[in-house]
């Protein structure tokens, strides 16, 4: 015991030197490589360039492209064509864009509402990069009107359905223990379904992230870090002790946080979809959407049904779960970024699966008192099927 504790703490000058040896050698290898090429012929036959056209902004008679150089070296924009017509343009700050640098291309162009445009950007090496504008309309700018519009979206897709779900609280708390366990299991099923959905969306966005930012890696980091962080927080709370009802309340809050992140990602997607003009119509879909997301509210209150949380706490949980949809809609609408979307969705994934893990522990406590294997099974499957079927009805 004493040996183990003293040995690793001895940090001498010699240890430092030994630690530095590989680093010094590495520097040598890099220097050798940079000066001699290490015997490899690393010149590429053709220039490798990559230009990410991250966003377009349409104003009257003006198109702006936000671009980022995601290639290995500096590149220069030479010419530009819109719908098979070479158009003059300006670039701020400069036509030459350093690696990972950003620039904005401005094109005076009399575009028409509702029409489609294809833009091709040529670099000086005659490499073409394209972006499609499927439906042209003035990109929403942050004004009072649009702000309120995006707020309403978030309200309808996030806040209202969750509060509707929470309104089941008085009815559900009259149910028996077995039914409550069933509801918890259903919540777990619901969350598993949402978690899978969230990670699928995270991966979808990750594909849009420019190469150097490694979207898939971001998904992994966001999800794993969130899972472990929430786990650590939960363990800390357990060690601080408190009553079992406090613990259930904490889990309800964590479910709200997980669903909140999920809704933040959804708000982002909706806002971004609006700002690029992917408009689909149908009030039927809004109604369907409210039906499906009502279950999220149900999930939040499931752990605290046997307790008596204050109305204020329930309201806060509802806001935590649904409110982020509004924030997401704002961010997605005004400044959509696939990197942000990936991060939020990854955090949502981690949070949701951690909450599933917490619920599983709660259910285990219940089932230790009274074995009810079929209740858990049917609950989880019911939860998953609930989302699947409501989704089916709507699509």
């Amino acid at each position, binding site marked *: 015991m004493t040996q183990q504790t003293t040995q690793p703490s001895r940090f001498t000058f010699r240890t430092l030197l030994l630690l530095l040896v590989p680093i010094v050698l590495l520097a040598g290898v890099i220097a050798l490589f940079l000066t001699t090429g290490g015997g490899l012929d690393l010149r590429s036959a053709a220039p490798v360039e990559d230009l990410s056209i991250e966003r377009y902004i349409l104003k009257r008679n003006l198109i702006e492209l936000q671009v980022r150089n995601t290639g290995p070296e500096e590149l220069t924009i030479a010419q530009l064509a819109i719908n098979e017509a070479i158009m003059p343009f300006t670039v701020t700050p400069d036509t030459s864009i350093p690696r990972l640098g950003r620039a904005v291309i401005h094109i005076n162009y009399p575009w028409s509402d509702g029409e489609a445009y294809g833009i091709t950007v040529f670099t000086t090496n005659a490499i073409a990069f394209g972006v499609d504008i499927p439906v042209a309309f003035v990109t929403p700018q942050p*004004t009072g009107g649009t702000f309120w519009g995006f707020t309403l979206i978030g309200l309808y897709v996030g806040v209202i359905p969750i509060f509707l779900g929470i309104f089941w609280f008085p009815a559900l708390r009259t149910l028996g223990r077995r039914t409550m366990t069933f509801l918890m299991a259903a919540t777990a099923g619901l969350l598993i379904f949402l978690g899978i959905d969230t990670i699928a969306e995270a991966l979808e966005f990750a594909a849009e992230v420019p190469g150097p930012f490694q979207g898939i890696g971001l998904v992994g980091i966001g999800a794993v870090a969130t899972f472990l962080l929430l786990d650590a927080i939960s363990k800390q709370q357990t060690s601080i002790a408190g009553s079992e009802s406090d613990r259930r309340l904490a889990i309800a809050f964590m479910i709200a946080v997980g669903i909140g992140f999920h809704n933040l990602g959804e708000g982002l997607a909706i806002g971004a979809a609006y700002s690029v003009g992917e408009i689909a119509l*149908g009030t039927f879909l809004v109604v369907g959407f409210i039906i499906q997301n009502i279950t999220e509210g149900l999930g939040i209150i499931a752990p605290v049904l046997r307790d008596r949380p204050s109305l204020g706490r329930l309201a806060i949980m509802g806001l935590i779960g649904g409110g982020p949809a509004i924030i997401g809609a704002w961010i997605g609408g005004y400044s959509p970024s696939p990197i942000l979307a990936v991060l939020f969705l990854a955090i949502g994934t981690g949070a949701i699966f951690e909450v599933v893990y917490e619920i599983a522990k709660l259910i285990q406590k219940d089932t230790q008192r009274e074995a009810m294997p079929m209740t858990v099974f049917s609950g989880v499957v019911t939860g998953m099927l609930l989302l699947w079927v409501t989704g089916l009805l709507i699509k």
Partner: protein
Amino acid sequence: MSAKITRRDFLKAGGLTVLGAVGANALTKTAPDHSKHESKILAAPALQHDGHDGTLPGTVGEVDHEKNGFNPTDLLTDFDEGEVSTLPNGQTLREYKITSLNKNIEVVPGIEYPAWTYNGRIPGPTLRATEGDRIRIHFSNGSNHPHTMHFHGFHPGAMDGVPGSGPGGNVQPGDSFVYEFDAEPFGLHLYHCHAFPLARHIAKGLYGAFIVDPKEGRPPVDHEFIMVMSGFDVDFDDANDFYAVNAIPFHFQNHPIQIKVGELIRIFLVNILEFDLINSFHLHANFFQYYPTGTSLTPSEFTDTIIQGQAQRGILEFTYKYPGMYMFHAHVTEFAELGWNGMFEVTE
């Protein structure tokens, strides 16, 4: 469209309906107009038309003609009549020296195209002779690909410049060959490389005009211009990215051709455009006499628009009645806005 609909798609749809119902009016009404605050365009085209919001299609900047080694305006009137001597039998001999060269050409400002050229220019030299002259072309291949010169006109098979026709049909890098034949029939013709793969060899820039004047000559005019219509596929996807007459897109839009009211203009128009099926020429505010292939001295049509397939060519003759700026361009309008657009500036 993918048939896969995710939960998010569904959410988008739902959310957007709400926005559409509540916020859309506000969105469209309140969006500010920023167009007036924009900075100036780098290089405004010489063209001054009203009615647009300040900008017409065109390239940004100017190509380096000196580095390219040719200026499309100079090519308009650059006729190469060869080195003239008389053969023992009294026949006129015209000798030309042509070398195929790899050369980077700045086709639009900022973009260099790794072209293949005759004598370092696109189009190649406009060879001009009179019907019945003996043509002798000393062709050397200074590039790193096999090339040939294939002429349209009468000549023996061995002078056809196509693979399988003998040494002239596949001139290796560093080798040379002498193409020799009599210039006939009179008309407007062309020459181009016929090495495999043919489409690429033409698209890369190996073509030029070949004019055979009738023995009695053509009626005199005030200006003769040679215009070769072609395109550039700079990203090698077998589709043209830019179009032009005399190689450089928008050149005659930015540098209008200067002529005077009442002057008789003759244009030798050749289409060698690769990848696209047709090309065309449309003259604004005017009509022209058209002599297809230039093989007759009687015009076949009085019109303002003609269509040419690849290797079709013809002679146009016209006069402007009024001063002003007059456009000429491919009435395949897509080509016009991708560079095949020019102007005549007609003065008193």
